[in-house]
């Protein structure tokens, strides 16, 4: 795979607050806008402080190749994401990217089922775009705690994809987890072999996705979130356990180089 990653200071072009503690920003960077593939991420650093010291990884959520920008969308959970929330247009962010291996398009794909859990939805728009351009049918299933995290549902509806929503508090879509409507849909599939699940979300959600691929026989890919020291393979800190047995006897893979997207059967999601 050719290495397109760069390190660059990107000006913030636009900043949006999409819900309680959910923000997005548009960063000017023609190179990453051009080269990023669905499922890849950027590693961001705001300022030069040591608290936090390390970069923070975020999916490339949307992009415009012609205008030369990409967007990230995030939920505030700690120091790093809080610092990002104080950025405004004109500020600048240090970016390394695009990083990681993105989603892979299986050869005989006819129906792509995109499943986002919470803020994990941020990994899916580029994928939706690519598949639709390739003439592949896309259905989107989004689950979240509440409506705030479903900020991208309008985006997917506008693409013409069918969109199913679920919230735990019932404020939007069906009440409960997205797994129930998803399972229902998968059970009704006429050609499961040409269907593929593409998911991104929190740990528990991904475990449910892996289980669903096993129960339904529909293949799937998961994008995982691990702690990352560097994001490009030099710290060896982002190891994830491989399922055994592997022919090459490899015990671990690196989330930043081998992932963050893995085949649902490839790795073990530890508790």
């Amino acid at each position, binding site marked *: 795979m050719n*290495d*397109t*990653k*760069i*390190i660059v200071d990107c000006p913030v072009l636009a900043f949006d607050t999409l819900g309680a503690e959910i923000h997005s920003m548009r960063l000017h960077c023609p190179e990453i806008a051009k080269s990023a593939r669905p499922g890849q991420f950027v590693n961001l*650093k705001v300022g030069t402080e*040591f*608290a*936090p*010291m*390390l*970069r923070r990884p975020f999916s490339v959520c949307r992009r415009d190749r012609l205008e030369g920008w990409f967007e990230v969308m995030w939920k505030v959970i700690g120091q790093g994401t809080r610092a990002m929330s104080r950025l405004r247009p004109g500020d600048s962010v*240090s970016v*390394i990217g695009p990083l990681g291996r993105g989603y892979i398009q299986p050869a005989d794909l006819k129906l792509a089922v995109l499943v986002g859990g919470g803020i994990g939805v941020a990994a899916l728009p580029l994928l939706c775009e690519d598949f639709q351009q390739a003439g592949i049918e896309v259905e989107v299933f989004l689950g979240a705690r509440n409506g705030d995290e479903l900020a991208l549902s309008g985006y997917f509806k506008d693409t013409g994809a069918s969109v199913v929503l679920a919230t735990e508090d019932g404020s939007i879509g069906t009440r409960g987890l997205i797994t129930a409507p998803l399972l229902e849909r998968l059970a009704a599939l006429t050609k499961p072999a040409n269907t593929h699940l593409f998911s991104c979300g929190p740990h528990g959600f991904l475990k449910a996705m892996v289980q669903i691929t096993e129960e339904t026989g529909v293949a799937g890919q998961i994008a995982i979130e*691990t*702690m990352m*020291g*560097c994001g*490009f*393979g*030099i*710290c*060896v*800190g*982002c*190891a*994830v*356990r491989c399922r055994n047995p592997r022919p090459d006897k*490899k*015990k*671990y893979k690196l989330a930043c180089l081998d992932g963050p997207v893995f085949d649902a059967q490839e790795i073990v999601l*530890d508790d």
Partner: protein
Amino acid sequence: MTNLSVKIGALSLKNPVLVASGTFGYGQESHALTNLSALGGIITKSVTLKPRHGNPPPRIFELPAGMLNSIGLANVGLDAFIRDKLPFLRTVDTTLIVNIAGSSPEEFAAVIERLNDEPGIAAYELNFSCPNVKEGGLGFSQNAGVTGDVTAMARKLSKRPLIVKLTPNVTSISDIARAAADSGADAVSLINTLVGLAVNVESRRPQIFAGTAGYSGPGIKPVALAKVFEVAQKVDIPIIGIGGISNTQDALEFLITGATAIEVGTANFVDPATGESIVAGLVQYCQRHNLHSVQEELVGSLAMWQELE
């Protein structure tokens, strides 16, 4: 014009800025992000005789001004290193230092003998001090006798200069440094990580799978400087300073305290061009202070306070 070059025994570096083992992979990973040939040298991830999977995750945890790691010396092993990593490293116009780790003196011996035949390597750094492996590792450099014995053995076998890397997790680092010096080490590098622990209070488990781990980053700089200070006073061979170096100011503090060269570690994770920036910063500093030679006018130039009579 400032002369940035330094000599560490028989080893010449075009400038005193190296990148630390385990924080720069095998060079290639950062090739797209920084000008590798700007560096005074690259020190590889520790190479062991056989490949190592490393420790189970979680392996890293961020802390204020630093991080814990317990990677467990995960590396491709000697054969794959020579086959897959060395060819690229040889193409980089900088000094290549291979860091070697092992769980027994025999393992160090086997790796050194094999690497001796490989061109393009300028020196070996012996990692006697990894806190994250059960066997060997820390044990070696926590004991002056063992450090001396293994260094002497390596000295006999090695065709190249030897740098012995020391742990700060000892009562007297200068005793260990002296043992290395007396047994033929060309230089000592210090410090490796400080043993640390962090606890997740919700799960009541350590934040790192292995329990204790190695603390690195800006937070350890004062400790590292004090160790360099101590060793510089007690041991004659050159010192390579390591610990929390993130910018030119940090690098200067080590050089002034008595380190002939420095290694940038954890800072590479945030910005792999840190070393390159420090080289540029050193040039500026030397010009501003009208220094002609880093080695002669800067290294060890620390002036202690004197009480007025």
